[in-house]
């Protein structure tokens, strides 16, 4: 496979402007002659569908939820970064670029990140114009707060519901286009395969989740914005429905999958309470602005937090990283929490937890100020745990939150299949091996509002696309393959439920491909996943039929894909003999327990190519060049 990243030449500051100028344009009158499919309606997909509709393309937009407003972007709490420098604290596009490349531990493409930092500024303008009610100061100007991995205040927020408000902005713009007839919306419709004709993406196969009908949709280009794959771990902060099916099936049709092992463990989640647990709940990173993280100095100290005196507490992040303190990046904070729990100093019944304490902030700023900033998060914590965080410290523990890996895309967000574009968390491009807080919303909207409207037009204008009919044999073949795989799942009628398999897979992944990995464990995980997958296809029980609403069937298809992706994640983690960002290989660490990169051998994007059901994946490498930010060991001390 040839990977051409299409990175423009010349100075990075002008790269995107130059690319836009060189792009071919579609005549306004011709735009309505092109049909574009958008899968997913989160920040990437919602913004893309709305903007493409507005431009005049004929857009068909799909989501598995009952409404496009429910995509999981809605759950993002803390904020969105932008290099506005409204606080006059020394921020700039270059600084946001620098922080993001460094935060990603030098495994992201510089040009993509620079463009992201440039677009961040327009995103805030766009969202304010749409009526997103960002937090404001008394003077009426926009307020900001700080997030991990940065020493400036560049995060814009709408209470603890920033993702919700940004998504509703995109959703409303999308609904306006639906009303105008430019976008046709297909809710409760799941993409189950990609149609590739003459090497180009020309359509998708879907299942109507209410009627069970399997249908084909053809188009001139396909845009996937279907989110990340954190649910491979079963327990994650993702919504229950979040899945990898759209990107995984596109991968099996030829789209390279990049850096699958780069997953983010978020340091501040509510700890697991029992076996029945169905998902984990995030407590926004913004809490680390005012909360102090600590554990008892002594092992096995079971006294309640209030009875542990100040001099017997270890504020380990402030101690180890004095200059960033509690605001170190997520991967660093998560590993530090794991380390103190491994030492036997964890808190709570399971010992897998650390305190996030607001007592000092409350006494300094008053309860009112804390309530104003985090009120809804405190309420949520109390609802879930039954404990009042105004009176006792929160207990938190790391959990899977985001996946930096995804389908490989070039600078124009096109995958290795021409005509297949990938946006947001579904692609791999901007966050390297670790994503900084408040950057996911920024990337989704940058891709959807400000990149795809240009690059998609360029593709359509530079390619001669023959007309494709939904009845074409290439389309019908994929359709019948999908029908068969659905039938196969329904025909097994074994003894174990889909969820029981998913939970077991998740445990293997968390134990061996989670916060810390090693070669032996990864090899063992690959063996276990294969065995479990074999058992799944022999003994899974998917009740009911395929002809109506069947949630177990939907889930079974998704879990089947998680098995394959989970194995590839372990393969990728095993191949990468270094530690970087969220990928921590125990064999490769400094004496102080920090991640040790190997730039000489691993400064590349691992783009895996599917070679068939029984053949191992093939590794393709896209070398990464750092002309502007020079790789160094990250230091937050």
């Amino acid at each position: 496979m040839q990977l051409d990243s299409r990175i423009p030449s010349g100075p990075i500051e002008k790269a995107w402007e130059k690319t836009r100028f060189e792009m071919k344009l579609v005549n306004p009158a011709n735009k309505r002659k092109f049909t574009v499919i958008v899968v997913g309606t989160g920040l990437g997909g919602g913004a893309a569908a709305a903007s493409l509709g507005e431009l005049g393309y004929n857009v068909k937009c799909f989501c598995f939820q009952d409404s496009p407003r429910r995509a999981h972007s809605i759950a993002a709490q803390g904020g969105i970064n932008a290099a506005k420098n409204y606080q006059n604290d020394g921020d700039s596009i270059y600084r946001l670029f620098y922080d993001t490349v460094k935060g990603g531990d030098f495994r992201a493409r510089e040009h993509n990140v620079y463009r992201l930092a440039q677009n961040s500024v327009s995103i805030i303008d766009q969202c304010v114009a749409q009526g997103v009610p960002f937090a404001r100061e008394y003077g009426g100007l926009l307020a900001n707060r700080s997030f991990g991995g940065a020493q400036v205040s560049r995060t814009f927020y709408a209470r603890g519901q920033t993702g919700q408000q940004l998504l509703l902005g995109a959703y409303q713009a999308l609904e306006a286009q639906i009303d105008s007839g430019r976008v046709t919306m297909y809710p409760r419709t799941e993409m189950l395969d990609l149609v590739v004709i003459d090497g180009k993406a020309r359509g998708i196969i879907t299942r109507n989740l209410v009627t069970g009908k399997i249908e084909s949709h053809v188009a001139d280009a396909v845009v996937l914005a279907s989110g990340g794959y954190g649910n491979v771990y079963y327990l994650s902060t993702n919504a229950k429905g979040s899945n990898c099916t759209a990107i995984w099936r596109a991968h099996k049709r030829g789209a390279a999958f990049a850096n699958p092992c780069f997953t983010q463990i978020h340091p501040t989640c509510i700890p697991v309470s029992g076996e029945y647990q169905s998902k984990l709940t995030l407590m926004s990173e913004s809490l680390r602005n005012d909360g102090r993280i600590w554990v008892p100095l002594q092992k096995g100290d079971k006294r309640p937090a209030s009875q542990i005196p100040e001099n017997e507490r270890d504020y380990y992040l402030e101690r180890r990283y004095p200059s960033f303190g509690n605001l170190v990046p997520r991967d660093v904070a998560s590993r530090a929490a794991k380390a103190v729990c491994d030492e036997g100093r964890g808190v709570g019944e399971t010992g897998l937890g650390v305190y996030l304490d607001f007592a000092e902030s409350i006494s300094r700023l008053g309860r009112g100020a804390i309530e104003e900033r985090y009120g809804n998060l405190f309420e949520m914590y109390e609802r879930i745990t039954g404990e009042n965080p105004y009176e006792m410290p929160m207990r938190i523990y790391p959990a899977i939150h985001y996946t930096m890996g995804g389908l490989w895309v070039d600078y124009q967000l096109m995958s290795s299949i021409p005509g297949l574009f990938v946006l947001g968390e579904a692609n791999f491009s901007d966050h390297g091996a670790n994503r900084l807080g408040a950057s996911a919303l920024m990337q989704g909207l940058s891709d959807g509002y400000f990149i795809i409207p240009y690059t998609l037009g360029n593709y359509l204008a530079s390619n001669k696309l023959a007309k494709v009919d939904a009845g074409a044999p290439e389309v019908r073949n994929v359709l019948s393959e999908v029908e068969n795989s659905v039938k196969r799942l329904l025909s097994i009628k074994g003894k174990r439920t889909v969820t029981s398999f998913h939970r077991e897979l998740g445990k293997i992944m968390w134990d061996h491909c989670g916060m810390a990995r090693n070669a032996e464990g990864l090899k063992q995980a690959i063996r276990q996943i294969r065995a479990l997958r074999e058992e799944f296809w022999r003994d899974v029980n998917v009740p009911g039929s395929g002809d109506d609403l069947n949630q177990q069937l939907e889930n079974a298809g998704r879990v089947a894909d998680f098995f394959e992706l989970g194995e590839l994640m372990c393969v990728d983690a095993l191949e990468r003999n270094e530690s970087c960002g969220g990928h921590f290989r125990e064999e490769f660490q400094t004496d102080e327990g920090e991640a040790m990169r190997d730039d000489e051998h691993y400064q590349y994007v691992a783009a895996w190519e599917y070679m068939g059901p029984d053949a191992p994946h093939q590794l393709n490498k896209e070398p990464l060049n750092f002309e502007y930010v020079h790789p160094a060991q990250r230091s937050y001390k």
Partner: protein
Amino acid sequence: MQRYEAKDVSPDMSFLEMLDVVNEKLIAEGTAPITFEHDCREGICGSCGFMINGVAHGPKSGTTVCQLHMRSFKDGDELYLEPWRAKAFPVLKDLMVDRNAFDRIIAAGGFITARTGSAQDANSIPVPKAYADRAMDAAACIGCGACVASCPNASAALFTGAKISHLGLLPQGQAERDRRALRMIAQFSSELFGSCTNIGECEAACPKHISLSVIAQMNGDYLKASVRDRGAVKESSD
């Protein structure tokens, strides 16, 4: 009506986790599991919701059913679960309903037109904090439908009013304010929702505490827009 027994329930389980446990058992026994809508399970996506003993989202105020925990109930309690009751929300299966009427109300005018890339600098129009805060209060609506399900008239006034208030409180929302009120209310009336008679059940049921005042704001906007609209029609036909 179908009766199920929920065994091995821990007080730390969420209500939906309790249903998960029931479903796992049903599947193992070869029975059809209970269908219910859910996604984020953090109380923000608005997917979940049904009546528990006649109360939308159950007994705990300001809480969606996914965030309701079993510690709110006693061992041995008998709970009646029903889907949202409203003609505008047809039942799809078990506890799952179709709420696309909400999307159509938004599509009719619940937006501010801002062509991508055309916006001026975000700080060029200051917005008084009090207005921004009130806009955010209204914008917190998650579109779950509890307001409709709790209303004896099955009215969507709280939902529609929340969006009209959110956008109408901001300077950016003024240009389309009249059109928005007229079109959204026309759509709301054409769906199978009832009219608002100021009973207030919606506010009590809302998991996000959306205030009844958004309905007053909506009625005010609609009245003003109707008067101005008549004037505009007259002017243009002159």
